[in-house]
């Protein structure tokens, strides 16, 4: 660390040049942070999926409904600890573009299944007691400015009411939040009983079942056992882990991960060019100074170290700032637009990866200039001066 002053001073030798390079690095890592967070959102909660929860859907298609009668049969299957259900309501709030998840559920069993949802006890009790009650996630409440006690009308697109109307009104009884910052709480839950009673058609059905595997039981085995039960029936089932289910969606988005990687690839390639150019200019300008260091007795390792440290320092300066701002922006986006970009999150893994890339990029950009510095002939360099 005693070399820090030397490295620092050398880095800022040409202030504008270093500043512009740092800014380029800053932009690159800001992009990295944003694209990583977006990529995370597109993984649809794969990372927070509970390994012990399974989802049961209609084998032919997710949009087909399952009979309510399956509930008890699933509960009775070996290895199943608890079961609940949910359905896709698919309405919108005020305008067609305000779409988010609304699910009619059985409150108690649903919240038992998802212990990561936290809600104040009184609010939950009020919800259970109110047939037309609903609870929403904190992200959703923030996005639309809802408070407990509000009346929230949802326009149904699929589910017309038995009386012909299409507006379903709910009393907001509570607001819940998730433990895990990676999970999304941009959804609305209401009473299945109300849904069942008021809807015009498809009575006695649900969208899908969620079950918890008993401790020690093999999720795959349980899944197969369930599907076997309903094989060759009018509604065959497909049971998969929550993670697999989430993944099946993200896979449908084509290869978002690939596109993000390609874009970041282009960004970093350019970044390496810019910093590599800066570093090689920086070394070229001070060949005689570097020669002097060698005459003073600075050995090969020291010479390499001095140049590489400068390169890495520039990367870290810009990169940490970029990641920092990126993190703040992601926080802001998650808060303001949680409904539209559920699950947007800059994971610790991404941050660690970013830092590793800063160091790697610093080494790559600086390695050739560093080798030049290390290998220079003192005599030739000084003679040229």
């Amino acid at each position, binding site marked *: 660390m005693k070399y820090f002053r030397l490295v620092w001073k050398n880095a800022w030798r040409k202030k504008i040049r270093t500043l512009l390079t740092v800014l380029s690095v800053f932009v690159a890592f800001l992009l990295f942070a944003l694209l990583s967070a977006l990529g995370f959102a597109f993984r649809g909660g794969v990372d927070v999926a509970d390994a012990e929860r399974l989802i049961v859907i209609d084998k032919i298609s997710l949009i087909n409904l399952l009979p309510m009668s399956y509930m008890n049969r699933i509960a009775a299957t070996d290895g199943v600890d608890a079961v609940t259900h949910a359905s896709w309501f698919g309405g919108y709030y005020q305008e067609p573009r305000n779409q988010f998840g609304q699910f009619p559920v059985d409150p108690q069993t649903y919240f038992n299944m998802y212990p990561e949802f936290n809600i104040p006890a009184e609010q939950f009790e009020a919800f259970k007691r109110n047939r037309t009650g609903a609870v929403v996630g904190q992200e959703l409440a923030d996005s639309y400015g809802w408070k407990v006690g509000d009346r929230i009308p949802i326009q149904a697109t699929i589910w017309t009411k038995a009386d012909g109307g299409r507006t379903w009104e709910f009393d907001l009884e509570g607001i819940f939040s998730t433990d895990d910052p990676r999970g999304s709480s941009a959804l609305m839950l209401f009473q299945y009983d109300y849904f069942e009673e008021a809807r015009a058609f498809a009575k006695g059905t649900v969208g899908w079942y969620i079950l918890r595997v008993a401790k020690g039981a093999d999720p795959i085995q349980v899944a197969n056992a369930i599907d076997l039960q309903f094989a060759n029936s009018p509604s065959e089932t497909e049971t998969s882990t929550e993670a697999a289910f989430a993944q099946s969606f993200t896979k*449908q988005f084509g290869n978002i991960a690939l596109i993000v990687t390609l874009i970041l690839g282009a960004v970093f390639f350019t970044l390496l060019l810019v910093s590599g150019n800066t570093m090689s200019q920086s070394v070229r300008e001070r060949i005689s100074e570097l020669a002097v260091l060698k005459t003073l007795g600075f050995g090969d390792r020291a010479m390499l170290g001095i140049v590489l440290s400068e390169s890495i320092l520039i990367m870290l300066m810009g990169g940490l700032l970029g990641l920092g701002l990126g993190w703040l922006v992601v926080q802001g986006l998650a808060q303001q637009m949680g409904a539209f970009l559920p699950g947007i999150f800059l994971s610790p893994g991404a941050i660690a990866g970013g830092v590793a890339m800063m160091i790697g990029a610093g080494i790559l950009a600086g390695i050739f200039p560093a080798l030049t510095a290390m290998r220079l002939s003192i005599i030739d360099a000084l003679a040229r001066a």
Partner: protein
Amino acid sequence: MRGLRQIFAVTWLNLRNLPQRIGSSVVAVIGVAAVVLVFAAVLSMAKGFERTMISAGSDDTAIIMRSGSTSELTSGLSNDQTLIIANAPGVLKDGDTAVMSAELYVVVDVKKKSTNTDANVPFRGIQPGAFAVRNSVTLVEGRMFETGKNEIIVGRAAQREFAGLDTGSTIRFGQTEWHIVGAFEANGSVSESELWTDVITLQDVYRRGTSFQSVRVKLQGAGSLQELKDALEADPRISPDVMSEKEYYSEQAAPLSRFIKLLGYPLTILMSIGAVFGALNSMYSSVSVRGKEIATLRALGFGPISILFSTMIESTLLALVGGIVGGAAAYLVFNGFQVSTLNGASFSQVVFDFAVTPDLLIDGLYAALIIGAFGGLFPAIRAARLPVAQALREL
């Protein structure tokens, strides 16, 4: 005129010794190229998607769904209602029968070739009028399906993108086996991402009774849409949403296309800022390398304006080269590249290809010009203002 001649002279000098500053110059060019490449690539996705969706819709076809549905999937019409529509004013008739197709679609799982995972593909039941109500759908392989049999024709795009859809093969959805007897093309529009069969067969297999989701009708003429709309809305037996097919598909395309643009534009802006920094860097270094030369020119009597402009021109030219390189790369690599993705609105896959259109490339060049201008401005000012004595010293 003398000023202009000076500018040309200095610019020519600048460009002639560019090879000496080749390192920095290449960096600036590549920086701009990367921005234009990413811009063109991302936005060509939106363009391609829009093109596929919108070309499906025609102005002289109306689509009727239950009012309030956001898409066909969430709509529902009874058989009686379809008959009401068939007899409504404004509907083109072929002899006595209306040119129309009442349709229903479900979503089935088919494996995507590229990722080998399941994808939601639209499986549509059509009536005989389906070809007539759409523009340019033609059967290109095999034959049309027969009613009462489990036969399917597949869209060309779907055939390319998803596995097991070759003409002559059999595919199983759930309990039922279906035979693929032909393939159709539809001008690259979204219809090509679908599987089609007889609607009655579909209703039967998927236990939909006699309900449909939508009705498409060919309109008689210019004012027919309004006529049809008024008549149906006035009818108490039906509460419809009536719109032109073109309008419907534009709406369907909007969310995803908006989403892509919402991501694409900020991304491009951010990258452009980065490119401006890169260009600034190159230009500052270029100016400092040319310090002695600039001073000499000034001493010889060339005005500061000529220095300023020549620097700006150099920067802009470099950026333009970058823009052309990036645009060309985008076109060569991405244009026509087929992808498919989930369209939230229809909850099923849409197959489309990247469309690197001329207007995108021109937008990219504009972006390059702006980057070049910004990247050259401050260094140009510095070059023009450099005190001669100092410049001669600053070798």
